[in-house]
């Protein structure tokens, strides 16, 4: 019988939640790495028991942990993320040049085919890769050395590379996103990169349609349609039908088009989910109501999903890597909040319940569907 494993990164440790395919009773293990920030943990599609976790604190820096048994035991692997060559400068908040300084890994993306190959998105923005299961990390410097790199500026959360999407149809094509530089694509395995921000409009910028500088919050792709991308931007929900060459807005009737997460139904690539947040100055749900919005039409037409979610006095946030889906039938949808709840829907969003509700602030949620 199939089962589901939910990997939760929080402000104070990692948790592993397990259930059978009914998804109504959950076993909760953790905290692992208690007291450390776990920005992200994710399993290998090629070997689901191989997990990687990004563990960090301001005191002791970055640690990467690896599990070979589905998260029951862990071992630290290499944590040296050294920029290639002389790293130079990016642009600081005040417009002055600022040296590139490694701070932490925001996102780990295991290869679809090799459990020893993992990509790591770092702050300050850079893409690293291991091909030996985490024993060593090497920068794919073509991204940071892209011609626009010196002009990249951090968002409020830092100059973070937070989204990595590996194209299932082309191992040389990778999409990444950086706050607040924008989205980028490589077609040659990371040697060279192209900004893919045409169609994005960011009114806070001197040139709202500039090639770079957009605060992309998250990007999602359905594996069956690698040319179609969905983006939650700082403001605006966007869609691309040409692998990022151009974008158009699909915010439609959302109560707010600000937010962080965006994800796609496992079996219907036109069904997408977002969690609207009131504004960039108030990171809380509109009207104190926690609502997931679902579009079954690939955007523009959205319906609120509220059954089981708090509809008064709710002032939590849902951070960019804190939503995921399983591939059971019906598709399960999961998201975590800064209030420490992880909500799950076993019916594609029609109804929700918290599967755990008093964790530290949730930073990331990943779901594995196990045979």
């Amino acid at each position: 019988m199939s089962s589901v494993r939910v990997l939760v990164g929080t402000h104070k440790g990692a948790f592993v939640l397990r259930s059978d395919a009914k998804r109504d009773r959950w076993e909760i293990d953790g905290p692992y790495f208690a007291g450390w920030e776990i920005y992200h943990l994710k399993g290998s599609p090629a070997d689901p028991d191989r997990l990687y976790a990004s563990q960090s604190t301001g005191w002791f820096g970055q640690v990467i942990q690896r599990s070979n048994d589905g998260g029951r035991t862990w071992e630290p692997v290499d944590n040296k993320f050294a920029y290639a060559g002389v790293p130079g400068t990016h642009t600081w908040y005040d417009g002055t040049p600022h040296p590139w300084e490694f701070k932490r890994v925001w996102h780990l993306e295991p290869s679809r085919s090799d459990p020893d190959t993992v990509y790591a998105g770092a702050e300050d923005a850079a893409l690293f890769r291991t091909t030996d299961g985490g024993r060593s990390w090497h920068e794919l410097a073509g991204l940071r050395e892209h011609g626009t790199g010196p002009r990249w500026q951090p968002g409020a959360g830092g100059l973070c590379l937070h989204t990595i999407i590996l194209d299932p149809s082309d191992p040389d094509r990778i999409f990444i996103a950086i706050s607040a530089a924008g989205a980028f694509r490589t077609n040659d395995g990371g040697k060279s990169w192209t900004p893919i921000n045409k169609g994005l409009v960011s009114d806070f910028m001197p040139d709202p349609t500039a090639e770079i500088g957009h605060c992309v919050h998250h990007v999602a792709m359905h594996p069956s349609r690698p040319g179609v991308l969905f983006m939650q931007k700082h403001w605006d929900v966007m869609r691309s039908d040409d692998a990022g060459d151009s974008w158009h807005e699909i915010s439609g009737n959302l109560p707010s088009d600000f937010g962080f997460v965006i994800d796609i139904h496992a079996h219907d690539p036109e069904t997408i989910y977002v969690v609207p947040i009131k504004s960039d100055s108030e990171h809380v749900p509109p009207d104190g109501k926690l609502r997931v919005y679902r579009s079954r039409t690939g955007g523009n037409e959205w319906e609120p999903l509220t059954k089981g979610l708090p509809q008064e006095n709710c002032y939590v946030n849902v951070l960019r890597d804190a939503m995921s889906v399983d591939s059971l039938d019906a598709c399960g949808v999961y998201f975590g909040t800064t209030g420490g709840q992880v909500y799950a829907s076993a019916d594609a969003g029609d109804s929700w319940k918290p599967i755990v509700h008093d964790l530290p602030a949730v930073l990331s949620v990943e779901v594995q569907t196990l045979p």
Partner: protein
Amino acid sequence: MIRVVLPAHLRTLARVSGEVALDVEGTVTQGSVLNALEARCPMLRGTIRDHVTGARRPFVRFFACEQDLSLDSPDAPLPDAVAAGVEPFLVVGAIAGG
């Protein structure tokens, strides 16, 4: 035998309990003690001093014999009592943060 006391998070990471006892060849300095510590516990590399620059991380301090040695040269000899194993070398995480 050099005695090193680690903060709780690093003891957990290194899977040690209590003090770490190290043999250090030659002059006993911050640098030689940390080199020996990282050789014994490779997972501590980068957590006390920066991987690339070798500099002490900002929220980590070094104490011994009731002295703050954090700003001393990594190559300066540690107090005789540390070199003799009478007093421990303390790696301390700043009391800060949430």
